[in-house]
């Protein structure tokens, strides 16, 4: 690596991470402001005593995880279906898939709200009491998460060697067994990447959540946005610090696991080349 490419990477990383570093520093600041007066951990203590923030955090995490898991299952299935379609139909469906990504969030949010309000009115006439809350939030999040899963899984499916699946079927697998024994392992990295992306987008989302949130729970983003008439409390800095550390840890973990798997695969290959299974 030449010195200038090193410098470039350094500058680039600084550009990305300095704001986060500043935020982390200020989450230990003694006073509520942008002048550093002294080191304290009181915001972290207060954060865990703040029922409203904790509830919002719980809501955000539950919605992110549940919607991402459901979206991952649906999106993977959709990608496999798309892969098997003829070109014209595939093109049409792919265009539909892009809509939630291209559409301005505000339009997505408002449309969801109108849809759910209509559903609420219809269900009320049948005598079902449907309220905005978990269901509306999670449904909306699933919808805007699915495209990201599809876009992450499709390339992996394209790389998949079809003869492997056919071989599995030859050896007596039914299609479902073949999927779980062969396909899923081949496309796993795409599925994981899509899932992580979905979690990120879901955690990050404000606009859609704003329009679909219920009266009982609100997501963190909605709560923080509502603070902007008074002030965003430093507890939120503390929380952001914790979230950043958690996300970093997850990414490191995922990367380590991938590494280990690759090593295992390589070793397996070597063994296989070296004369099959040892007794």
């Amino acid at each position, binding site marked *: 690596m030449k010195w200038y490419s090193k410098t470039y990477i350094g500058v680039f990383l600084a550009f990305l991470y300095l704001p986060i570093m500043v935020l982390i520093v200020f989450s230990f600041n003694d*006073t*509520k*402001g*942008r*002048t550093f007066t002294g080191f304290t951990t009181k915001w972290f203590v*207060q954060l865990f*005593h*703040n*029922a*409203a923030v904790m509830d919002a955090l719980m809501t955000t995490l539950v919605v992110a995880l549940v919607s991402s898991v459901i979206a991952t299952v649906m999106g993977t299935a959709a990608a496999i279906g798309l892969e098997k379609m003829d070109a014209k139909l595939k093109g049409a469906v792919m265009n539909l898939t892009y809509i939630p990504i291209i559409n301005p969030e505000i339009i997505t949010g408002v449309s969801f*709200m109108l849809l*759910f*309000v209509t559903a*609420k*009115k219809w269900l009320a006439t049948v005598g079902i009491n449907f*309220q*905005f809350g978990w269901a509306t939030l999670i449904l909306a999040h699933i919808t805007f998460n699915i495209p990201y899963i599809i876009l992450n899984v499709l390339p992996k499916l394209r790389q998949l060697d079809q003869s492997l699946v056919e071989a599995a079927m030859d050896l007596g697998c039914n299609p479902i067994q073949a999927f779980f024994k062969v396909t899923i392992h081949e496309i796993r990295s795409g599925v994981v990447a899509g899932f992580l992306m979905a979690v990120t987008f879901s955690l990050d989302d404000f606009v859609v959540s704003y*329009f*679909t*949130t*219920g*009266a*009982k*729970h*609100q997501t963190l983003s*909605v*709560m*923080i*946005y*509502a*603070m*902007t*008439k*008074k*002030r*965003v*409390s430093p507890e939120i800095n503390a929380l952001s610090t914790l979230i950043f550390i958690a996300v970093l840890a997850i990414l490191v973990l995922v990367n380590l696991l991938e590494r280990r798997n690759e090593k295992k695969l390589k070793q397996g290959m070597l063994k296989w080349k070296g004369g099959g299974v040892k007794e």
Partner: protein
Amino acid sequence: MMIMKHIKPFLALAWAGLLLLTLLAAPLTVAADTDVDSGQPTYDRGYYSRFKGKELEINVYNWGEYLSIGEDGLMDINGEFEKLTGIKVNYSNFETNEGMYAKMKSGANAYDVIFPSDYMVSRLIQEKMVQPLDFDNIPNFKYIGEEFRNPEYDPDNLYSVPYMWGRVCLIYNEKLVGHKIESIDELWNPEYSGKILMFKNSRDAFALALEKLGYSLNTENVKELEQAAQLLKEQKPLIQAYVMDQIFDKMQANEAIIAPYYIGDYYIMKEVNPDLSVYIPENTNIYYDAVCIPSDSRHKEAAEMYINFLNEPQAAADNAEYIMYSSPNTAAVALLDPEISGDKNLYPPVEELVNTQAFINLSEDTNLYIDRLWTDVLSQDEGYLDWVMPAFVVFSVAVLLINSIRKRRKRELNNGGLKNDR
């Protein structure tokens, strides 16, 4: 709480007696005195335990950071209320009156307690979106100061209980300015160019311009509004940023010199930056945030109990101290640190408020017109807009052209590569 144990049966009796006699609006004076031994506030348990074990929930919709939640040794209002009554509080927040109104109008959620500002209260009353309160269930209304009853926005005081109030003021850095500021014109002073902050919402920003012009803050006159917009346009080059919550940071860190905001917030800033001073214009905007119950609330009595609890002297006092806005609750003001309750900016003598102007609800047309003018102000002399769009269009067209030419070349190569002589 040994004393309570002995009193409770009597309280229950008294309560039952009251119900039987149905004395009109006889407030329970037994409640809400402070227990001398413990310093803990005592509540009228008979009143507050009516819904115990009923598994009730109420949806409370409030401004962000506008309720004491148990920090700095102050009361956790929602937690205390839940302990006392057994009613679960679902608490969520909005950021502007208009945001709250839109949410209610959409019919997405049914709220039980909301906190609209003055002009929004009258709008909600007009549109029958709030319901009359039963003041028999809100005995603590007796603590509300005389001057806050029957306000302009709710003339017969049927729908609302005042929650907090305050005035718009000019917060400035006296050390950097070098002298006292005594006029709103300073917001237009080129000397502070790039160091002036301004409200990010149209109603508050226009109010300042109208005030400078000497017009009513509630004018519906198109000419007057246009003049105000013109003033705001002239001011724009001097403005560092149009902000709300960032005012705190910018003023505390000496990044800005002068900014209009709400008087209660000045004290929060001054705690961090002692160089700050404040000036309150005589005819400034005065605002009242109230508590109401929406028409589609399903637990009206529980909601009234919540409103009553907000006006328990200790709860209201802790709330006022946490938010730092002025409380209309006289018993709460009496409990406040004299340094706060004696402050002329927060609790001025009545005659000082004679010329202040409260917002009233404007017609839909005026609201839309103000919003249009405001957008116009904000998008003024954004110089790059003039050339960015055409440049972008030209660029896009060029890319498309080059692409199509390349494609055609490719096709020609594939079809009849021999024809092409190189």
